[in-house]
């Protein structure tokens, strides 16, 4: 999707926090991205490499954790990762289900000196 603007938002947060915490060199940034956002890891890493130039994050590693879709069945309560198009409960076969994970898009933490 909008990998460059997402990474810019990430850097705004990390750079601000680094300044507040007296961190002068960031070594690692951990990003969590839900399956819903369809953000492409290569594009995120490319944007990170370009946009970190000249900031405290220059040379840092970007670690992207993908969170898979997780649904909960409204009828029987079973939680499941859907396969293919269907969001039907694999247990009771109802199609009335609720998304509980896969919508994430946040900076988890960063490490620095």
């Amino acid at each position, binding site marked *: *999707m*909008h990998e460059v603007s*997402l990474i810019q*938002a*990430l850097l705004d*947060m*990390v750079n601000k*926090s*680094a300044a507040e*915490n007296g*961190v002068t060199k960031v070594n690692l940034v951990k990003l969590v991205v839900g399956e*819903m*956002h*369809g953000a492409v890891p290569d594009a995120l890493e490319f944007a990170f490499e370009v946009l970190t130039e000249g900031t405290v994050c220059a040379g840092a590693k970007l670690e992207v954790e993908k969170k898979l879709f997780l649904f909960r069945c409204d009828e029987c309560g079973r939680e499941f990762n859907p396969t293919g*198009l*269907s*969001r*039907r409960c694999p247990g009771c076969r*109802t*199609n*009335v*289900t609720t*998304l509980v994970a896969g919508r994430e*898009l*946040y*900076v*988890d*933490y*960063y*490490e*620095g*000196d």
Partner: protein
Amino acid sequence: MKVEIGKNLLCANADQADKNRELFRRRGAAVINIISSPGSGKTALLEKTAQLMGDKFKTGVIVGDLYTDRDARRLNSAGATAVQINTDGLCHLTAAMVFQAFKEIEPENPDLLFIENVGNLVCPAAFDLGENAKVALLSVAEGTDKPAKYPGIFREAAATVISKVDLLPYTDFDLTSCLTELKELNGKMEVFVTSARTGEGLAKWCRWLEEFAAATK
């Protein structure tokens, strides 16, 4: 040194969306974010909806396009109060744009407000505008596979409107299998089979809107 952040990257938009939702609630407006591909008939559906709902609801439309105010002019002629947002190339509306546009429409006190998003099935699904529900639109000319190719929006939508069904005899669109796939994706979603040109299915759509508006207040 490890520093935890745990903050959403789209938090600026999400915060503004929450403010919009509160503003809409205070002003008594039920708000629907309409999302579809370009050319699937969003404006035509809303023109007909404004005409049919005219005596029951004051219909407002915030309409997003990359360029031109053609849609807003069509909607105003149909009796809605419409405000155009030009995104100058941006592929989705943001909560801040909607907030600005709502200032123009607010004096008219719309009780049913549609946000006609930029024609695009991907990006608009990720940007909360403060709406009460999303509605997806899909025209039969686009092909049966649309929900399978873009499941995100059909999964999020409270309702899907299948449009241009008057063209069914001239296309290979398989209505039965499309309806089946939509139900596989999202069993909570309402589906309306419509034609803005012939009026087919619009009475049922308008009844759903009335119930939706009543339940939102």
